[in-house]
């Protein structure tokens, strides 16, 4: 994708000569271009509705919400100057920053904020996180009003610790504040006019997305921290090339046609480590990879067999081999990066072959085959399955791997139709959500792995209060029951791997697996 | 004795791989304007000799020795370029298969003009004019339309004429005619060969006619060379070769010519075995997948009786409906009208199992009428499947006896492709006779065989008929064979019987004009009548 303006139209001497010029990308004028890669095209430019992980990552450069996640997954102010909680946690009053400009030059007013929030809550917008504020969600929003030009008050029907984290969730489009002209008179989406450091320049479906620097960006004072802090664009243009094949992307980086590639596959790491012209950025992520058990399966409903499998695994060796040292073993449901990950969570399963064989004998296991579903879309999911099978073999547990494509595996996951499965959960930015994704009544939510009413009560309480000490105690208790009941074996949290050319400065990964290209420059 | 146009001295042609001689020490000469016939059966090397003259031997053969001198120039030593300048103007060649002797992909005119354009520097219009004149000369009705048309739009006879025209355009000194009319029926054959003689006369071209049919030799050649397995048996004038042959093989060839045998009128009294009244068959232009069967005229209104032991021959040109008649009488084709009675029973519409088992058919092409995947023994045994209460031992005994009777004892385990054409036709006959049928249709049973083999097969067929007494419908366009075998003769034209009678009546006193034309065209070597070439000469 060496799309650069050549100084002058040189005559074509011969194909080989042409190839040589092509390989050397000449920069005509001072415009700096950062070329990166997505493994699939974005779904749309309408944040929070028709989206996937890639779309959220790109949109984070264009739009901003009132609040945003910091690097330690706590919540920090973004477009809001500050906020206060009153009325027993049911009323949130936001003071807005002044002088913030939209991409079309208009200054953000309190009416824009109210309009945007109301637009998200309007069912016609089909906001992904609308169900969070419905009856079965965390709370209902009863009223949004702007008492004066600088404050917006939101009243909920019940207190919840998850209101701000939900507003800040990238997959909810960070409940972005956008200008009215982003939609047509009929409410149909046109293009994102947000307040972010970059604006949407071009979108060539299936090939690339161009973001151009927004000169009128009003940056916050404190330094960059997660999706908040100062977000200063230091390159003129960022091009996201659509390159499905990871090996091809890696080759593009090595041949100089790409500057940054992220969400690298582990196998690519092996080769890039030894390259002089490439630097690596490895940061622990929030995603969770593990082996799920169907506790209703006739064989696996016996906790002794589940425990035996847990005890025959050497989690450290699995993680080192599969992730090649980019991640640390973690048997707890909370990611290592989470503020609530403490000494209790650090203690999980230790390999004990003898105990495992004893349990198997007690349970009367005599080699019945256990089907372990895996997929090849995420190499570490598949590799973990192969290693688990190998290690289980040593104690006589006969595991058969069944490879499905991602959509088929998701279908089996959602219906709970599996004996066991090597699976990866996407990032949850709040500790309660990390547990919520695993727990729940299997009758009504067949995708949930852990069906323990008492634990569910503790989870509900953890979602209500935002007192850190109380939540920590609840999470510790839930962890102990989790390790005891072995509904699944958590192996590790993923790692966000990125490879950059030497001349890229200022790039830093963080817990959330999406890149941030503000504060990044090309020498 | 002027210097001969072509002298071939001690010519030797051998197979490239095995070195076996296909032509061994053959010498002969052709005077200017002379018509020489090269006679031999398949495998005698006559075609190889002709092709050697042009230097166009097939890839498997090469010239191993001897000279070929044309007008004093030894063709063997010429450079390929010089040889090419001779092909066409000096030596022309006409081939056997009308269907594939002209390139189907380009127009007739283009192929004719190709030769002229190569050898003479002429304006396009002059070339076109000469082609059109030559086409008119070979009696093609509409030359201009023919010039732009494509070969597949013409009949076999027409195509041979076109080929003759394109060769004679270059006024060659020597014309090699390799069995030019074998694939044509007698009438067309006569027209094409007469035309060839006239054209050769016009330009003083000497002709080397390669054939296995002595009838043609007597009519069209002055001298003849007899070849057997690549060796020269005898050379001499046609008169001397045909009427006082010196060598035994030549005598055998002449004897093999069918001649009128004594008619053993075995006309059984009483009910004819099979009789047909007003038989009608309409052919809706059905395109058989393989043979592009010309739209055979419907058989309309044929009356015919055949008694047990009697042979009724059906003759007529191609497209006269004789084959369709045979198939209809066997109920292989559903007749559109009329009635067939077998042993007194009406079998026209009902599926009479007994009639089916009692009737048999012998095909013309020995290659495609036997299943290549079955051994000889199995082929002959297959009809016996339908004979009730026959033990395996009994069946094998009958098969062995049958093979012995057709002279192929001990070949039960062989595969059809391991045998010669003659042997395969004997197996086809054995298969037909083994169940002692009472009615046999023989559809051109011998026309694909060499003369000597034809004679043997006809003799075998006659003996078997005498022994088993089956009624036989003998379909053929070869009047000589018919003359030898038939008790009664039926002449068909355009799907209708134009004449019917005993063999002697039809052959000696033909009534219908078409019958007369057929008899005149047939190169029957009648010892009483002088050879007609000299009349032409």
């Amino acid at each position, binding site marked *: 994708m060496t799309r650069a303006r050549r100084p002058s139209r040189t005559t074509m001497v011969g194909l080989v000569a042409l190839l040589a010029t092509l390989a050397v990308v000449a920069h005509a004028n001072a415009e700096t271009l950062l070329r990166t890669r997505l493994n699939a095209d974005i779904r749309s430019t309408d944040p929070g509705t028709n989206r996937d992980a890639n779309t959220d990552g790109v949109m984070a450069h264009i739009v901003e919400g009132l609040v945003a996640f910091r690097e330690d997954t706590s919540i920090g102010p973004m477009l809001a100057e500050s906020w206060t909680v009153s009325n027993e946690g049911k009323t949130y009053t936001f003071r807005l920053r002044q002088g913030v400009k939209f991409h079309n030059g208009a200054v953000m007013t309190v009416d824009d904020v109210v309009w945007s929030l109301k637009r998200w809550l309007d069912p016609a917008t089909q906001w992904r996180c609308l169900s969070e504020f419905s009856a079965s969600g965390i709370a209902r929003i009863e009223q949004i009003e702007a008492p004066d030009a600088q404050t917006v008050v939101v009243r909920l029907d019940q207190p919840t610790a998850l209101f701000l984290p939900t507003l800040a969730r990238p997959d909810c489009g960070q409940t972005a504040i956008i200008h009215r002209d982003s939609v047509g008179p009929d409410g149909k989406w046109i293009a994102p006019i947000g307040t972010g450091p970059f604006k949407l320049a071009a979108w060539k479906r299936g090939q690339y997305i161009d973001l151009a620097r927004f000169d009128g960006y009003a940056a916050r004072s404190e330094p960059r921290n997660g999706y908040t802090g100062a977000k200063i664009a230091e390159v003129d243009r960022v091009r996201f090339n659509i390159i499905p094949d*990871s090996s091809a992307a890696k080759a593009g980086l090595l041949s100089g046609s790409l500057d940054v590639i992220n969400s690298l596959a582990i*196998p690519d790491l092996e080769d890039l480590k030894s390259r002089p012209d490439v630097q690596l950025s490895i940061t622990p992520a929030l995603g969770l990879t593990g082996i799920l058990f169907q506790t209703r399966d006739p064989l696996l409903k016996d906790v002794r067999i589940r425990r035996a499998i847990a005890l025959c695994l050497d989690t450290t060796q699995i993680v080192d081999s599969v992730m090649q040292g980019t991640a640390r073993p973690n048997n707890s449901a909370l990611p290592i990066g989470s503020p609530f990950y403490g000494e209790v969570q650090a203690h999980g399963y230790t390999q004990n072959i003898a105990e495992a064989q004893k349990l198997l004998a007690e349970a009367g296991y005599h080699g019945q085959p256990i089907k372990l579903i895996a997929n090849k879309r995420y190499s570490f999911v598949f*590799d973990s399955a192969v290693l688990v099978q190998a290690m289980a073999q040593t104690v006589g547990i006969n595991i058969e*791997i069944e*490879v499905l494509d991602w959509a088929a595996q998701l279908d089996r996951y959602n219906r709970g139709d599996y004996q066991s499965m090597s699976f990866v959960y996407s990032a949850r930015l709040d500790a309660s959500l990390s547990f919520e994704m695993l727990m729940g009544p299997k009758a009504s939510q067949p995708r949930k792995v852990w069906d323990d009413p008492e634990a569910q009560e503790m989870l509900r309480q953890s979602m209500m209060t935002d007192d850190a000490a109380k939540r920590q105690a609840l999470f510790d208790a839930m962890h102990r029951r989790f390790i005891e009941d072995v509904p699944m074996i958590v192996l590790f949290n993923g790692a966000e791997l990125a490879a950059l050319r030497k001349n890229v400065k200022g790039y830093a990964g963080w817990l959330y697996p999406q890149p941030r290209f503000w504060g990044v420059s090309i020498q | 004795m002027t210097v001969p146009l072509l002298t071939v001295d001690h010519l030797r042609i051998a197979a490239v791989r095995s070195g076996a001689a296909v032509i061994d020490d053959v010498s002969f000469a052709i005077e200017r304007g002379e018509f020489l016939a090269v006679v031999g059966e398949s495998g005698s090397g006559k075609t190889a000799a002709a092709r050697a003259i042009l230097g166009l031997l097939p890839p498997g053969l090469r010239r191993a020795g001897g000279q070929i001198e044309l007008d004093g120039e030894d063709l063997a030593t010429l450079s390929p370029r010089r040889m090419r300048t001779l092909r066409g103007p000096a030596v022309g060649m006409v081939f056997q298969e009308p269907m594939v002797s002209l390139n189907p992909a380009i127009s007739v005119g283009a192929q004719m003009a190709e030769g002229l354009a190569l050898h003479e520097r002429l304006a396009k219009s002059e070339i076109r004019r000469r082609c059109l004149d030559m086409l008119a000369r070979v009696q093609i009705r509409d030359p201009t339309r023919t010039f732009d048309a494509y070969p597949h739009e013409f009949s076999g006879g027409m195509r041979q004429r076109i080929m003759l025209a394109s060769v004679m355009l270059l006024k060659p000194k020597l014309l090699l005619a390799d069995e030019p009319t074998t694939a044509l029926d007698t009438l067309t054959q006569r027209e094409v060969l007469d035309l060839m003689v006239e054209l050769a006369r016009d330009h003083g071209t000497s002709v080397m006619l390669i054939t296995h049919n002595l009838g043609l030799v007597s009519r069209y050649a002055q001298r003849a060379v007899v070849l057997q397995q690549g060796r020269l048996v005898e050379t001499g004038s046609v008169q001397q070769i045909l009427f006082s042959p010196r060598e035994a093989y030549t005598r055998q060839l002449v004897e093999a010519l069918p001649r009128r045998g004594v008619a053993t009128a075995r006309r059984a009294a009483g009910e004819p075995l099979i009789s047909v009244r007003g038989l009608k068959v309409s052919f809706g232009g059905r395109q058989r997948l393989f043979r592009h069967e010309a739209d055979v005229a419907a058989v309309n209104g044929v009356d015919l009786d055949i008694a047990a032991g009697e042979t009724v021959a059906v003759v007529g040109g191609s497209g006269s409906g004789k084959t369709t008649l045979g198939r209809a009488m066997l109920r*292989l084709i559903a007749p559109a009208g009329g009635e067939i009675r077998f042993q007194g029973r009406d079998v026209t519409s009902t599926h009479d199992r007994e009639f089916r088992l009692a009737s*048999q*058919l012998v095909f013309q092409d020995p290659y495609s*009428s036997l299943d290549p995947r079955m051994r000889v023994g199995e082929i002959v045994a297959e*009809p016996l499947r339908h004979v009730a209460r026959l033990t395996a031992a009994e069946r094998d005994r009958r098969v062995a006896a049958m093979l012995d009777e057709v002279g192929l004892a001990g070949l039960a385990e062989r595969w059809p492709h391991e045998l010669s054409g003659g042997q395969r036709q004997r197996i086809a006959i054995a298969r037909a006779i083994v169940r002692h049928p009472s009615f046999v249709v023989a559809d051109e049973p011998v026309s694909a065989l060499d003369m000597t083999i034809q004679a043997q097969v006809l003799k075998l067929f006659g003996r078997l008929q005498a022994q088993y007494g089956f009624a036989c419908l003998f379909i053929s366009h070869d009047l000589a064979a018919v003359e030898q075998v038939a008790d009664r003769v039926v002449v068909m034209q355009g799907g209708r019987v134009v004449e019917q009678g005993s063999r002697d009546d039809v052959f000696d006193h033909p009534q219908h004009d078409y019958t007369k034309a057929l008899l005149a065209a047939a190169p029957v070597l009648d010892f009483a009548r002088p050879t007609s070439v000299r009349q032409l000469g």
Partner: protein
Amino acid sequence: MRWHANTVIGGALMTLVLGTALTAAFWTPFDPLRVNLRARLQPPSSLFWLGTDEFGRDVLSRIMAGAGTSVVMALFTVALAVGVGVVVGCVAGYLRGWTDRVIMAVNDALLAFPGILLALAMMIVLGASKSGLVLALGLAYIPSVVRVVRGTVLSIREKEYIEASRVIGNSELYSMVRHVLPNAMSPVAVLATSMFGWVLLAESALSFLGLGVPPPAPTWGNMLAASRPYMETAAWLSIAPGVCIALTLLGINLLGDSLRDRLDPRMAHG
């Protein structure tokens, strides 16, 4: 002369492949499935003749085991495709009229699908397993067999020895089984050999697209696909299976040629 060379070289290659597959059933230098993480991605050495893969498994053992799986899978697929194809083809060629037209309409519809992608979709439906692959590829190849068999049956029906069989009094069905079918087998035999090669290619392509025979059981296809990311650092990972597939295909094609020459009607008529 050429026919002879084809058979010799083709035969040698195929015996090599089948030999490897057979020996693999009893003995392989190492256990093809045993993971040995310390010996990851080692180049060919005296110990590991063809080096080790990303899990430290011995490549040579996996090639040998893979030979078995690939060959057996190809045999079953061809058997399924040819078996069903011949039956349907004969019915279509023999009955003609409406049945023929319906069968051929369905057949053309299936032929319009790109084969590999049809197999991919079926793999997902049937679940990615060896039997799933055999069924998927088998079904994908049936239409081409049906077309060849129908064409051959139609042409043979017109041959004179079929008419002779009718004259003898054999029923249509008997003529079909006893005379038409044996003679229709030669084009089918030639098609079967080339189809054997197609299956190997298709299995590799499916693994490449992400859904071939599921690892860890080795097949040449999934080994080649898995070698893709290490193409640069561990080239031997893709060279070995690639060469094996190429040699097997070469062997099959040469044998197919000699078979065709031997069955060529001209040869048969002598």
